[in-house]
C-alpha cells in the first residue's frame, strides 16, 4: 500500500487545524486568546529547571526607531536637506539580504525625516522604496499597494501619515520576528540608526559653531550604541550581522573617547497633566577633532551601505 497520500492528507489536516487556530486567535479576547496553559509538573520537571527559569530572563535592547531618530533630529533643531537622502534611484543596486535590510532601515529614516518636514511627495516616493526593499526581503504584507494609495490619497493629512509610517515599521518588525528572522530586523534597525547619524553629522560643519543642543544630541548616541552592540551580539551567529557588527565597532571606538557626565535624576510628577518630568543634567565635552573623526567614519559606513 502506498502511504504517501495518507501522509499528505494528515499533513494537510494538521495545517488546516493550525491555520484555524491562527484565525481563532485573531478574533479577540472573548475567546480567551493569547493564552497557553502549562502544568507546573511539566514546567518544573525538576528543581534545576525551576532554577533555570529564574535565570532565563528575556532581555530586549530597544534602539531608536527610524521615526524616533528623525524626531530627535527635528526637535534638536535640524533643518531639512533633501540632498542628504539616499537616492531612490539606488533601489535596484540592493540585491543581497544585507544590503536590502540596511537600506530598508536607511530609506525608513529618510521617509520619516521627509514626513516630519512635510515633504509629502518625497514621503510617498520613499515609502515606495521601502516597499521594494521589504518585498526583496520576503516581507510581502508589511507595506502593500493599499498603504501607498492611502498615503497618496491623504497626502495633506498629517495624522494619517503619522499613523501609517509607524504601522509599516511595526508590520515589518513583527513579521520578521514571526518568521524567526530577528537578525534581519536588527540589521534594518542599524541601517536606520546609521542614516540618522549620517544626516545629523552632515548638518554640522563645525561643532564649535553649531547649535550646542544639536551637537549634544549627536553625542548622546553614545548611549544608543551600547544597545546597538548588545542587539547585534544577540544575533552574532548570523554572517550579515557579523559584518555589520565590525562596522559598528569602528563608530563605537570614537564614541568611547567622548565623555558624557550624567547627574542623578530628580522625579517631578505633575498631577494636572499626568506627565512626569525626569530632571537631570548631562555634561558633554565636545572635542572637534573627535567629532570630525566620527563624522568621517559615519560617512564611510553609510557610503559602504548605500553604494
Amino acid at each position: 500500500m502506498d502511504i504517501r497520500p495518507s501522509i499528505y492528507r494528515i499533513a494537510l489536516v494538521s495545517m488546516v487545524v493550525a491555520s484555524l487556530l491562527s484565525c481563532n486567535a485573531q478574533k479577540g479576547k472573548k475567546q480567551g486568546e493569547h493564552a497557553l496553559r502549562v502544568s507546573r509538573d511539566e514546567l518544573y520537571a525538576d528543581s534545576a529547571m525551576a532554577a533555570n527559569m529564574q535565570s532565563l530572563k528575556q532581555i530586549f535592547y530597544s534602539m531608536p526607531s527610524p521615526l524616533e531618530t528623525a524626531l530627535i533630529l527635528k526637535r534638536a533643531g535640524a533643518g531639512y536637506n533633501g540632498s542628504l537622502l539616499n537616492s531612490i534611484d539606488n533601489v535596484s543596486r540592493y540585491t543581497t539580504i544585507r544590503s536590502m535590510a540596511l537600506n530598508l532601515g536607511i530609506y525608513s529614516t529618510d521617509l520619516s525625516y521627509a514626513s516630519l518636514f512635510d515633504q509629502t511627495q518625497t514621503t510617498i516616493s520613499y515609502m515606495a522604496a521601502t516597499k521594494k526593499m521589504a518585498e526583496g526581503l520576503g516581507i510581502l504584507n508589511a507595506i502593500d499597494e493599499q498603504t501607498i494609495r492611502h498615503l497618496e490619497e491623504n497626502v495633506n493629512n498629517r495624522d494619517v501619515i503619522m499613523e501609517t509610517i509607524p504601522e509599516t515599521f511595526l508590520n515589518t518588525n513583527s513579521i520578521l520576528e514571526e518568521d524567526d528572522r530577528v537578525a534581519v530586523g536588527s540589521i534594518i534597525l542599524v541601517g536606520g540608526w546609521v542614516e540618522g547619524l549620517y544626516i545629523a553629522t552632515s548638518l554640522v560643519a563645525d561643532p564649535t559653531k553649531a547649535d550646542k543642543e544639536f551637537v549634544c544630541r549627536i553625542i548622546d548616541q553614545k548611549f544608543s550604541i551600547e544597545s546597538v552592540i548588545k542587539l547585534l551580539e544577540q544575533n552574532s551567529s548570523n554572517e550579515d550581522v557579523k559584518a555589520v557588527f565590525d562596522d559598528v565597532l569602528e563608530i563605537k571606538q570614537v564614541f568611547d573617547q567622548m565623555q558624557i557626565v550624567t547627574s542623578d535624576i530628580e522625579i517631578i510628577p505633575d498631577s494636572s497633566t499626568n506627565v512626569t518630568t525626569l530632571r537631570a543634567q548631562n555634561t558633554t565635552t565636545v572635542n572637534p577633532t573627535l567629532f570630525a573623526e566620527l563624522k568621517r567614519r559615519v560617512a564611510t559606513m553609510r557610503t559602504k551601505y548605500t553604494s
Partner: protein
Amino acid sequence: MKSRIHILLVFSLMLLLPALGHGQCKNFAKKVCRLELSPYIHDGNYNAAILTEGEEAELFKTFYAGQEYRMAVCGSESLPKVEFTVMTVDRKVIYSNASNGYASNWTFNVEATQQLIVVVKVPSAASSSDDDELCSGCVSIMFGLKIDA
C-alpha cells in the same frame, strides 16, 4: 505506518504552534496595546514576548532629552495584572505601576538623555497554586512619541 503519521502530525504542529504564539502577540500588540498610547504616536518598534507567570523581562532603551514619551505595558487578559518598573542603569526605581493602581501606561519627559531599564513581571496568580497550572500569555511593551503639530 501509524508511527510515521504520528511523527508527521506532531512535527507539523510543532512547526506551526510557535508561529501561532507570535501571530497572537503581533495582533495583541497592534490591536490592543497600541491603543494605550493614544494620542501619542507609536514609534514603530515591536517589543513583545510570551511570558509565563513568575517570569520577568527587561528592556533597555535610551530616552532623548526634550522628548515626551508614553510607554504602555500590556498583558493578555489571561494573565494576572502585569507589573512594570522603570529604573536607572544603577537600578534606582523611578516608577512602578504597582504603586499606581497597576496603570498600563506612564507618560514622562526627560530633560537629559538617559538610558533606562523597563522591568516587566508577570506575577504568579493567587489561584494558580490551587489548579496546578501556570498561565502564559503575550506581554507587549510599546513606546509613543509626542509629535508637535
